[in-house]
């Protein structure tokens, strides 16, 4: 049953229109006769803020020439760190994968042998992948890591050409660490 044929005590149930079908445009209120000066002053007051801002120094950052300052604890792209002697820190313990709220880290561990020693101790990560498309950069993996292997660096420009490239594998993550990250880690205390 559509709106039109609904009955309310005999009369079609319709909202009352604002103006009757035959009424014209209402007359202009008294004393407000159109004048050019009034229009210009209204225009000027309207643009006052805009003109004010126009001549004050721009706050826009001309990206990419200059970038917004980032805090030392900014959580951006991940890195897998190494010890001074070049051995990888990551021991493939999968605690980061367990801590990750979105489950975007895949770790497959394997056993170190004397010939193929990747990390100190018995265990290392044969496969370590982070799906950057799903990562929410919360930093839980960095907190969970018992050996401070996975850390979040400062970069946030992570665009790429194909979805597969967003699966960061070990060699991408093992790239050398930007210097200022080391400062942040030292401030966090020994691990």
């Amino acid at each position, binding site marked *: 049953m559509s709106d039109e044929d609904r009955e309310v005590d005999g009369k079609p149930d319709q909202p009352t229109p604002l103006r009757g079908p035959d009424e014209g445009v209402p007359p202009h209120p008294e004393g407000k006769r159109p004048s050019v000066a009034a229009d210009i002053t209204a225009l000027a007051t309207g643009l006052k803020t805009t003109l004010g801002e126009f001549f004050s120094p721009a706050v826009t950052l001309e990206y990419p020439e200059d970038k917004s300052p980032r805090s030392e604890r900014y959580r951006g792209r991940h890195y897998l760190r190494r010890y001074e002697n070049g051995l990888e820190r990551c021991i*493939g*313990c999968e605690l980061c*994968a367990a801590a990750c709220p979105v489950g975007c880290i895949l770790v497959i561990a394997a*056993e170190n042998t004397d010939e193929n020693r990747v990390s100190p101790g*018995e*265990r290392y990560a044969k496969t370590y992948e982070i799906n950057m498309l799903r990562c929410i950069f919360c930093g839980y993996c960095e907190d969970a890591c018992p050996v401070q292997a996975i850390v979040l660096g400062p970069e946030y420009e992570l665009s790429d050409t194909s979805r597969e490239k967003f699966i960061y594998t070990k060699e991408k993550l093992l790239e050398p660490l930007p210097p200022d990250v080391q400062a942040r880690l030292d401030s966090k205390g020994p691990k």
Partner: protein
Amino acid sequence: MAVATDQVTLQVDGVSVTVPKGTLILDAAKKLGIDIPIFCSHPKMEPVAVCRMCLIEVEKMPKLQPACAIPVAEGMVVRTLTDKVKQYQQGVLEFLLINHPLDCPICDKGGECPLQDQTFQYGPGASRYDFQKAHFDKAVPLSDKIVLDRERCILCWRCTRFTEEISGERELALIKRGVHTIIGTFNDEPAQSVYQGNWTEICPVGALTSRQYRFISRPWDLDRTPSVCPGCAMGCNIQIDSRHNKIGRFQSRENLEVDDGWLCDQGRYSFPYFQRDQEFGSPSIRRDGQLAAVSYPEAVAEAAARLQRAGSSAAGWASPGATNEELFLFQRLFRETLKSPHLDHRQQGIHETDPEDIGLPIADIERCDHVVVLGGQEVIDAAPVLHLRLHKSQRHGVAVHRVDEVKAGLAAVPAEATVVGVLATAARRADAITLQNQLVSKVKGSVRRLIVVRGPNGRGAKDLGILPHLGPGYAVLNGRAGRPRAEWPKAGIRALYIYDASPLQEFGATEAELDWLRSLDTVIVQRFKPSVLDEYAHVVLPGRAFPEKDGTMTSMEGRVQRIATGIDAAHVWDDWRILQAVANAMGAGWPYRTSESIFADLAKAVPAYAAAAPAQGRVLWGER
């Protein structure tokens, strides 16, 4: 009023419970759902109360009592949640952890480690120990299957007690004294036991871990599928733990009637045979000498055409590793569609079979007073977990006689024996029957036998009639019997359909048979992995491995058990689907859509299977 004398009523944390006399406080509390923390206690071993984790308060006893070792007494009042107990539990866990290495990140037990769980639940937040931990050697290869980390060991004695009470091999022992005590074999020689896999399961920490499963996965990443071990006819219940669609390990899934919670290494470490770690070839047809890859329908059509040409002179061999459903279809394909009686599942020997072979259920071995193992070690090699059952029976007073000849077996059993069991492999079945008959006349009690057949579904193959002379349910095919495999070369067979379901129970062709295969004009091979038979095959139909399919298997004692899909292999047709396609290509018109539907038909054709709804009861031919 006089309560039945063997029942005892006691109170645990304010709730009263009545349990039979001699029950331990630990079990009485468990009956109320109160879990008292333990490490060294194990349901299948004598209590030793060495870890002292389970100490609880018992009224009128000044000291805290070990719940795992003190039997209940009438009117006993037990408290497990008092401050004294809680404070002590923190203390003992702190003691356990002072020399325990902080290995959780690299330890395989992480995530399923009782020490880890109980430290979270009962333990102190932090440890006040600030000295050097005692160091021992780590990652000691005890054998090619087990690695031992002596720093993680909390000396709960479970593994040494296992080798003494359960397997009887007494290989592991405590060495040195006090805090320097370690576990090890004699002179650090490699362990020889075939039950080492169980050590890794009963060890409450990561001291004993499996080398094959080393660092494969964390417990929370595993997909767990209940299934049955493909190793032998014992039918031990297992759990397939897989990750990324690859089998990580087999774990035991306790079935008190069959395996009592244990697995043998032969079965537990057999999963690499069923690993689909690379492509096993697509269906193919031999065209001018070479196997050309084709699609399934083409291969099925070719196979059907060739079989139809051979008609009743076709022969079919099915592996005792196949499921009941597949064997049923295989048997229908030959007897109904092809009208050929030539079926077999055995290798060389031609030994008879009948329902009496499952007279003695495995669990009943404990209730016998004399058990004759005809063939000694040979029977144990055929079903290794049987040894654990026999050793348990021996410890409870059953006389087990491991003999080689009938005469010795007869002499060993005294006339006044009441319940006698005879165990033998299929090869020695005839001797077993003669021994059984002689015993029946000598002994006043009952004599039952259990024949250890070959293959996880050897019994199923016999029940479903994959035999030339017997139809499903041992129906006698008078006059229409076929020829057993041994006679096929001379029986004018022109086509051979080999269904090699499991790499562990292969066709195993002899030299003579290989020559005969070359002479045949049709050889169809349906197998999981590329095998030597592929060169002789005209049609190759790749099928699935046992962890990739649903179905039921019948263990040697006639217990029908379900296996489930742990690994999915969608790109490979299920075996019963291939068999149905071949049959339907010849106009059989089978309507099956799932393996359950096949089982429904199977149960109609073989009534005894109807009684044993899968995974519960045994096929009792008595009520046929």
